[in-house]
């Protein structure tokens, strides 16, 4: 699995991406139904960091990660990505920013009935005329970017297959390729391994780790499992009921720290490898 070199832009095509910082200032998110998902969260993530956002489900980590690409609008406070203030962007400018922020999801979110190629081509949408994307045609350069992205996650041989025919781990790798083909400056991952079995979960986490190490890409990954956070990330942010309750090096986080984040004693299901 690890034979393929990730950051190697082998064809000499330079990566357009430069790693960006992410900063949240006093961010509060209140949903229309009245639920307050984030309460005055402030945090700054430096370019090239790999950060785990840890918390139980409902702690606000999905909301936090979605404020960074504007999928969830903030009620109060500001979110800054690179030199863009996300909360001020609308329409075309917001789509442009999203083009620079890759994201992967727990449920992979591929179009199962489309080919792997067309799924990964979605990553080029922000940089392509709409008419071209509607007929599914790719420029030679986009095609090259897609193929390189697929190769970097070891999925090139499946390029013409249907996404729905892949296994869970393969789907998540195609989803990573989709995000990489954006040539992103920030990578977001929302519970990327929660639907996968332990060996596959580790290999997907290793993919994220390598993206961070080899491309120097800023990576934010939502996790609810403590051992994955400790093993693959350098910094950990803990969320509990929408509030920031922990921020420190992931490796140093003690069981007591995790109990404080979870708000309860540690249980076997808090670890992937029991």
């Amino acid at each position, binding site marked *: 699995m690890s034979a393929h070199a990730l950051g190697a832009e082998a064809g000499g095509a330079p990566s357009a991406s430069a790693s960006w910082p992410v900063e949240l200032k006093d961010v509060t998110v209140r949903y229309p139904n009245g639920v307050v998902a984030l309460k005055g969260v402030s945090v700054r993530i430096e370019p090239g960091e790999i950060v785990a956002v840890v918390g139980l489900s409902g702690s606000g980590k999905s909301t936090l990660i979605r404020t960074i690409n504007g999928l969830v609008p903030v009620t109060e406070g500001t979110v800054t990505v690179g030199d863009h203030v996300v909360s001020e962007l609308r329409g075309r400018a917001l789509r442009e920013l999203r083009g620079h922020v890759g*994201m992967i999801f727990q449920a992979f*979110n591929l179009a*199962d*009935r*489309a080919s792997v190629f067309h799924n990964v081509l979605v990553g080029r*949408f922000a940089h392509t005329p709409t008419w071209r*994307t509607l007929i599914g045609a790719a420029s030679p350069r986009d095609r090259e970017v897609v193929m390189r992205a697929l190769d970097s996650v070891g999925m090139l041989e499946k390029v013409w297959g249907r996404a729905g*025919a892949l296994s869970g781990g393969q789907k998540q790798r195609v989803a990573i390729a989709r995000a990489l083909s*954006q040539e992103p400056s920030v990578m*977001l991952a929302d519970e990327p391994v929660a639907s996968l079995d332990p060996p596959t979960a580790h290999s997907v986490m290793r993919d994220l780790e390598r993206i961070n190490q080899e491309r120097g890409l800023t990576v934010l990954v939502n996790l609810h499992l403590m051992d994955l956070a400790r093993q693959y990330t350098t910094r950990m942010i803990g969320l509990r009921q929408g509030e920031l309750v922990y921020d420190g090096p992931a490796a140093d986080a003690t069981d007591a720290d995790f109990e404080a984040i979870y708000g309860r004693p540690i249980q076997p299901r808090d670890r992937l490898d029991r």
Partner: protein
Amino acid sequence: MTAPAIAPLAIPARPRKPLVRAAWALVTVALIAAWWHLDIGLRDLATLPPDIVHYTRLMFTDPDLTALPDAFFQTWRSVAMAWVGALLGVVLSTLLGIPAAAGVGPWWVRLPLRGLFAVIRAVPEVVIAIIILTVTGLTPFTGALALAIGGIGTHAKWTYETIEAVPSGTSEAVTAAGGNLAQVIRWGLWPAAAPELMSLALYRFEINVRTSAILGLIGVGGIGDLLTGYTQHRQWDTVGVLIVVVIAVTMSIDAVSGRIRRRIMEGARVRDVERSA
């Protein structure tokens, strides 16, 4: 020896359902009123079975096959009308139905469109044909156009319901990658909805085959037209042949189309779980 005292049971009061009773009473009254108003005599009902036998004999004992080529030609016309009507109707329904789906169009687009579909659903194809034949005349094209417009009412509703049933994950991923609304529809919604929409389009065609025969009754051509003519002249031996042709053709189309629809839906399902080695 005293018998043990039996404590009285606390039986809950039986719930009264006045609304249910009222509803049943209303249905009964409506049925009696309708029956009485239509003046259906039991005596007329008594002559029905012998009448059926009588006309069946007239129609099928000595069929007049001279009209057979014409019957097939007019049936083909009906089917062509149904096909063109389905194609036009499905294209229009898709274009109008997608913006009417929640999560795609804003409310001020959705509500008027849904209102339009509801109005169209309330008007039968025959009435639409009568209205538009003042412009387009008594031609099969009028029939096709009536089927297309009439089809929008239900097909556009099926379209937006299908689109709304698509899980939102893929759309979220396309949005997160910077895609605009058109791109979200094309790659977030369409791939998941397409098999179902194709199947519904074929079903639309099946329905149109039946409706096109009815449209013939008002004179736009096709098998219905022929059937009206021979019935009015009481040429039962030919009417019988026409009926057999209509039933045979309609059933064949239903069978073939139904099989294709099953293949589309099963194929979509099977391909979702198969693992390409």
